[in-house]
């Protein structure tokens, strides 16, 4: 019973890191890419030029660092919990992304979209009540 509790605690901790670092990373990527303006690629030389511009943007690297944090937490949690549990459970990240997009980047989020996000959170709540592992340990 105690190891069950530990498994849940470990899982929730990793999912918390995921839902903070993931959206933060996406928002930083969005900020970085928007700051570059319109990018046109019509020749291989253009592709190189664009790649250089993209990867010399500081904000992009902050975003990548944040996403790596997300990815490490994600890999760790997948080593003991089911994929079809982890993916829905981490979907509260969509609410965090919209919140950050609206507050940090000043994006417009319509009422319908907020309603959608609320339903996503309800779905996440229900998914979170099921156990993190459905396969018996070999």
């Amino acid at each position, binding site marked *: 019973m105690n190891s069950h509790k530990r498994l849940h605690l470990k899982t929730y901790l990793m999912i918390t890191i995921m839902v903070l670092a993931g959206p933060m990373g996406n928002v930083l990527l969005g900020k970085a890419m928007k700051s570059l303006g319109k990018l046109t690629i019509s020749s291989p030389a253009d592709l190189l030029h664009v790649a250089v511009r993209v990867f010399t943007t500081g904000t992009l690297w902050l975003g990548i660092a944040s996403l790596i944090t997300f990815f490490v937490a994600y890999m760790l949690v997948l080593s003991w919990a089911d994929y079809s549990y982890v993916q829905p459970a981490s979907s509260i990240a969509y609410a965090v992304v919209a919140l950050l997009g609206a507050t940090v980047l000043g994006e417009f989020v319509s009422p319908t*979209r907020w309603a959608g996000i609320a339903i996503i959170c309800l779905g996440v709540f229900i998914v979170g009540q099921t156990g993190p592992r459905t396969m018996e340990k070999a």
Partner: protein
Amino acid sequence: MFETICFSLIVIAGTVGELCVSRAMKEVGEVHDFRPAALVRFLLRAIRVKWMWIGVAMMAIAFFSLLAVLTFENVSFVVPVTALSYVAGAFGGIFFLKEHVSPRRWVGVALVCIGVTLVVIGRR
């Protein structure tokens, strides 16, 4: 058209990539020890699994597609649309990883899908 291709790549390559990584992690085994040295040993074990490399390559494709879309679309629109991978993910988990998805969890997944649909409808 370009947008559709990018979104398809984000969803499909992203989901396939995550399934491959998940399969790789199951092969590596559960993490019990969180000390740095143990985590490094764990990572060294992880990169020897073939599925890990296929998964990472797929996720890289999804990542660059995401960057491309983010040059002209808002994050609060792009990220919810990528949640289309939930449908692919649930079925992938069953067929590819042989995971069991309980009816209750299906309800949660369905609600998440409805929410995502509304998010897309409320684009403007």
